[in-house]
């Protein structure tokens, strides 16, 4: 049988007595402190555990990584051979790109425009430019050359030249005409 609660005697002066509200706040604070402490300890335990677990995984991965590195290092000869081949193929492909239009191609295109009665005296082809010096037997040969020449370069859609410049034209004592062209 429960004993009835005896009334306590508080001898403190009224101004020093705790109010009910203050007691509740104190109790709440106490409980909160302990709850936070509990959560903190649980979290700390979890974090330490997780850290330890992650450390062991990291060590395991490191060992695995070191082992794989050794295995790949053992195949360095194959890697080297492949890289040498790749490097050289890349260089060759770059060279082939620059070989798409060579002086030889330019000369061949230039020569295709030469008509009968025209005598080439000098021909110089470097990358992208052809200098042609020639003699025309007479003015009709030159007219024919320019006419054919104009037709050819107007109709050829994929000519390697974008501009053709008449660099000089002079008549010689024997009646022939000397001229020079710059193809670019």
């Amino acid at each position, binding site marked *: 049988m429960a004993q009835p609660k005896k009334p306590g005697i508080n001898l403190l002066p009224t*101004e*020093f007595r*705790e109010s009910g509200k*203050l007691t509740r*706040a*104190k109790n709440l*604070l*106490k409980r*909160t*402190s302990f709850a*936070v*402490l509990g959560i*903190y300890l649980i*979290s*700390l335990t979890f*974090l*330490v555990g997780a*850290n330890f677990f*992650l450390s062991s*995984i*990291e060590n395991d*991965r*490191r060992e*695995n*990584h070191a082992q794989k*590195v050794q*295995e*790949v*290092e053992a*195949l*360095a000869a*194959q890697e*080297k*051979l*492949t*890289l*040498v*081949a*790749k490097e*050289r*193929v890349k*260089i*060759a*492909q*770059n*060279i082939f790109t620059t*070989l798409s239009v*060579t*002086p*030889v191609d330019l*000369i061949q295109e230039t020569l295709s425009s030469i008509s009968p009665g025209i*005598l*080439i*005296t*000098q*021909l*110089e*082809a*470097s*990358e992208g430019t052809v200098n042609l010096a020639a003699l025309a037997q007479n003015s009709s040969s030159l007219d024919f050359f320019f006419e054919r020449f104009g037709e050819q370069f107007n109709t050829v859609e994929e000519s390697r030249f974008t501009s053709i410049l008449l660099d000089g034209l002079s008549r010689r004592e024997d009646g022939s005409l000397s001229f020079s062209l710059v193809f670019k």
Partner: protein
Amino acid sequence: MKNLDINTLAKKYTAKYKAFVLPLSILLVILALSATFGKDLVLASLEKRERINVLNNKIQILENKKATLQSLDQTALAEQVTITLRAVPSAPSTLPTLASLKQLATQTGIVIENFNVSEQSTEEEAAAREVSFTFSMQADLNNTLEFLEQMRQTAPLTKVTKVTFSSPQAGSSEVNFVSFWSPISDTLPPTDTSFEALTQSERQAIENLKELRGVTIQEENLPTPQGRFNPFEL
């Protein structure tokens, strides 16, 4: 009117809130600890996780690389390297170019004279280095062009830079061209970088290089890799 003594008030409030000091202190200490050790632990865990992810990626790359390297046919690879080294030698290409040119001149019956060679100083980092050649030819225009066309199909790779016919009818011309070479690097990239075997287009390019004519000059053995690049090295 009530007499308000400061000492009485201080005693009153000290007694009232004394009970709060201990739990409040505990709370503050816990919060301070959480902000220091707890935060450090969380950060350490996150860093470890990040490192593990990086290691996992590297291991995956290494596994793929190992599988690719193991699948390579060493004999075929050595042959492919020989072909590419014939096209782009690892040492100055003067001798192999001269040999190929001589062979071509003999085959076509063209006379080559006034031969000049100069090795151009190129930047150390340049992938392809050049050797310049100049020579005169005694052949008519068509034969000269045919000769130059055949030069394009010889190894080592060459590029005609200038052709001058000073007297096309007399059959005299001067040719400037360069041939290419590239030293082999002594180092390999870091082990855990990804690796790709020769692609289809690269194999096709090698097949095209195989068609190049020319003499084969024994290359030096490939140098053993001396080390790998340190990506963190300045």
